[in-house]
């Protein structure tokens, strides 16, 4: 596609479609003659008001791409080039980054305000009271040292003027691109038009985003600066750990997280009631399916098939939900933790492996080094 746009190849634009020169080939020539002779082309053209093959200055062109479809889907067709064009456009118009993303990230809000309160100590003393979202942010602020720069960013965040100016600037721009006129044009000319059209698309979408961002910032105008600083810190780092509960943003999947709970060391007993001390580990669940508990670290346990990292915990009668909700995340983590801590029965030796050596000839995981 890029090569086509960078070329001097003559193209035809008609009714918002790009027509490419037809290859000169005897077989194709024969087919074309047959189409024209039988009038199929004319019939189809009238029906659809579009011709598959057109003649222009005695040259034949074949219908290839819809230019609107190309603009709409370019982000998917060539993500790398689209992002380059987008970044150029954002720089040209000095449009701010996406700090407010966290305020719109529903998954993170679920983890932060619904899952985390279940696993961390919130109350002091003997009273049990419900914590508001602000209370949770206060608690994070108390337990995590937020670097100074996020407090500065919070002050910037709460100042709406620069964003308003950008929005006004965008509103003054002509956010429209006229499709090229019907007729012949070179690949390079089409490219110039195409890049303008992409810029219009980016600016239109940025206009929407900034209008939304401004709305969010207005909502948080009265919020405590330390709360904004905490949220900006989370947006930037994408991870946090308090009282052994934590989450971390997934690098490969945008907007997805790994939520985990750290176990402390625990003891399991074998068939002969001998004790084995298991080291701590992190039981996790991802926010994208499958919603099954697994151990992050390299770990061994009767319910893990191997001795390696990222292994799913083998659990009986557990049907993972397809829906992402706080309740399901909590349930999945609890099932995983309970299985590791309390699920193994030394007498029944349930699991992939037995704690005591049972099979002489079948290779299995050895737990002798955990014996106490």
């Amino acid at each position, binding site marked *: 596609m890029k090569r086509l746009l960078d070329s001097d190849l003559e193209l035809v634009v008609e009714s918002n479609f790009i027509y490419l020169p037809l290859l000169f080939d005897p077989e194709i020539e024969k087919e074309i003659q047959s189409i024209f002779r039988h009038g199929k082309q004319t019939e189809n053209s009238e029906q659809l008001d579009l011709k598959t093959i057109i003649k222009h200055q005695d040259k034949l062109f074949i219908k290839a791409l819809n230019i609107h479809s190309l603009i709409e889907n370019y982000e998917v067709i060539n993500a790398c080039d689209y992002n380059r064009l987008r970044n150029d456009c954002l720089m040209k118009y000095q449009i701010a980054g996406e700090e407010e993303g966290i305020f719109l990230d529903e998954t993170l809000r679920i983890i932060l305000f619904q899952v985390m309160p279940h696993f961390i100590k919130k109350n002091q003393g003997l009273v*049990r009271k*419900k914590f508001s979202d602000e209370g949770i942010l206060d608690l994070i602020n108390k337990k995590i040292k937020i670097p100074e720069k996020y407090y500065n960013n919070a002050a910037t965040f709460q100042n709406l003027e620069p964003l308003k100016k950008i929005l006004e600037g965008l509103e003054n721009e002509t956010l429209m691109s006229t499709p090229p006129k019907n007729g012949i044009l070179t690949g390079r000319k089409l490219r110039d038009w195409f890049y303008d059209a992409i810029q219009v698309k980016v600016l239109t979408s940025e206009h929407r985003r900034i209008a939304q961002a401004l709305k969010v910032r207005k909502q948080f105008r009265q919020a405590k600066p330390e709360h904004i600083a905490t949220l900006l810190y989370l947006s930037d780092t994408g991870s946090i750990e308090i009282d052994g509960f934590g989450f971390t943003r997934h690098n490969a999947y945008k907007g997805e997280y790994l939520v985990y709970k750290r176990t402390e060391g625990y003891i399991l007993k074998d068939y002969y009631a001998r004790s084995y001390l298991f080291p701590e580990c992190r039981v996790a669940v991802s926010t994208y399916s499958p919603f099954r508990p697994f151990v992050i670290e390299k770990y061994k346990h*009767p319910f893990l098939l191997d001795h390696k990292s990222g292994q799913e915990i*083998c*659990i*009986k*009668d557990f049907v993972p939900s397809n829906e992402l909700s706080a309740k399901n995340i909590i349930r999945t983590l609890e099932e995983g933790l309970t299985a590791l801590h*309390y*699920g193994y029965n030394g007498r029944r*030796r349930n699991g992939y492996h037995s704690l005591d050596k049972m099979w002489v000839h079948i290779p299995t995981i050895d737990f002798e080094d955990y014996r106490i």
Partner: protein
Amino acid sequence: MSDIDLKKELQMDEAEKLLPLVLEIIPGHAAEGLIDIYEPGSYTAKSLKKLCDKTLNKKNLSIEEQLIVEDIKRQLDGGKLLSRGQEIEGTALEFAVSEQTEAGEKYLYIPIRAIKPQEGGLGS
């Protein structure tokens, strides 16, 4: 100091039997549970199981406490109460450890988890 050492120390220190007992029943692997306080002398002759039943049947709970009790009962549907990985058979003093508030007041504390069993593996 291990739990066994702590228990021995408790047995030796008769004065500690005069401390109030704080019982916390925690649903699953949550961080916080339902708290109940027993005055000195009110718990010594009773089994820990009985104390737990009494705590779970407490009236006049706040909405937050009622939600915790619901969660505990959900776990106990086929589950059991465990303290430090052991079933709660015996008296409260056998499981209690001595702690103190920020103000320096001593009390005995027993954390109990309501755990719904989860069997893993392939079975036998």
